[in-house]
């Protein structure tokens, strides 16, 4: 078993971005969305540790502390995390030169519900999630990595808790379809990297459906599926000891 300690932050109403600068930047950047079922964020083993590993490999990493959907400070809580993910990509692209980043090599990745957020950012970039935003900077990520992600909100596939926290207990069919990202993949969806285990309680179908949607749309995708591993393990599969990060770094380098 790996020995990570779960650090869980709830009630995030003030979003922040934390930059981990490599000594020798390759020009690639990654915005990291920790998971937490849209009820909090696991900022250490799905945030800081990953950012440090990527920075050690020359990738400029940014940990996004996105707003947790909450009716107390959101008019429509379903939009807040996507607004923050889009703002993070926008900000990194705008300050790319300052941070040694190639503005055409900015990716987003996420774990579990953070994977849902990353998948949403990768499939909803055509318009600003904040309708009052007039900034024309592209918010399309250049690549996306989904680690044991929630992708779908459809019945029997998606994770009920994440769905309820983002779009409520009684969402409309239209809301469910809007946030079921496997239904939103198009030929303009960025290349995808997927990690999932078959015994995960967030069903592996989430990743399989996204992968199949990528295949249908001619989007390059790389999938790492294991029989066992469970959920929420961070960088190292606790069953077989495999670390998927070196493969991700290699994949990013090829983008």
């Amino acid at each position: 078993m790996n020995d990570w300690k779960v650090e869980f932050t709830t009630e995030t109403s003030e979003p922040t971005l934390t930059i981990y600068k490599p000594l020798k930047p390759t020009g690639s950047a990654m915005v990291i969305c920790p998971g937490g079922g849209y009820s909090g964020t696991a900022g250490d083993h799905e945030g800081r540790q990953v950012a440090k590993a990527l920075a050690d490999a020359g990738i400029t990493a940014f940990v996004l502390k996105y707003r947790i959907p909450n009716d107390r400070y959101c008019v429509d809580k379903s939009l807040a995390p996507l607004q923050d993910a889009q703002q993070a990509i926008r900000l990194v692209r705008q300050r790319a030169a300052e941070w040694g980043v190639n503005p055409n090599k900015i990716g987003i990745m996420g774990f579990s519900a953070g994977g849902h957020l990353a998948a949403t950012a990768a499939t909803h970039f055509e318009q600003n999630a904040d309708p009052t935003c007039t900034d024309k900077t592209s918010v399309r990520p250049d690549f996306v990595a989904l680690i044991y992600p929630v992708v779908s909100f459809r019945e029997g596939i998606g994770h009920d808790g994440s769905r309820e926290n983002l779009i409520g207990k009684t969402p409309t069919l239209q809301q469910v379809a809007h946030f079921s990202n496997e239904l939103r993949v198009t030929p303009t969806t960025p290349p995808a990297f997927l990690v999932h285990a078959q015994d995960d309680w967030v069903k592996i179908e989430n990743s399989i459906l996204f992968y199949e949607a990528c295949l249908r749309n001619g989007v390059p995708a790389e999938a790492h599926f294991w029989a066992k591993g469970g959920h929420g393990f961070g960088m190292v599969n606790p069953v077989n000891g495999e670390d998927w990060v070196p493969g991700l770094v290699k994949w990013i380098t090829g983008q």
Partner: protein
Amino acid sequence: MNLHSILLTLATVLFGFAKTAAQPPQTFPLYGSSPSPIPSPPKTSKKRR
């Protein structure tokens, strides 16, 4: 080991460490420029479909 060797080893270790040590991370507000106080993020509005 004489003093010169010790100093040389120490310098090598320190220099090597300086070359590989990661820069400390910096946190800044998503909707404002660092290091100014964190402004309020935009209020979310009803979805337009």
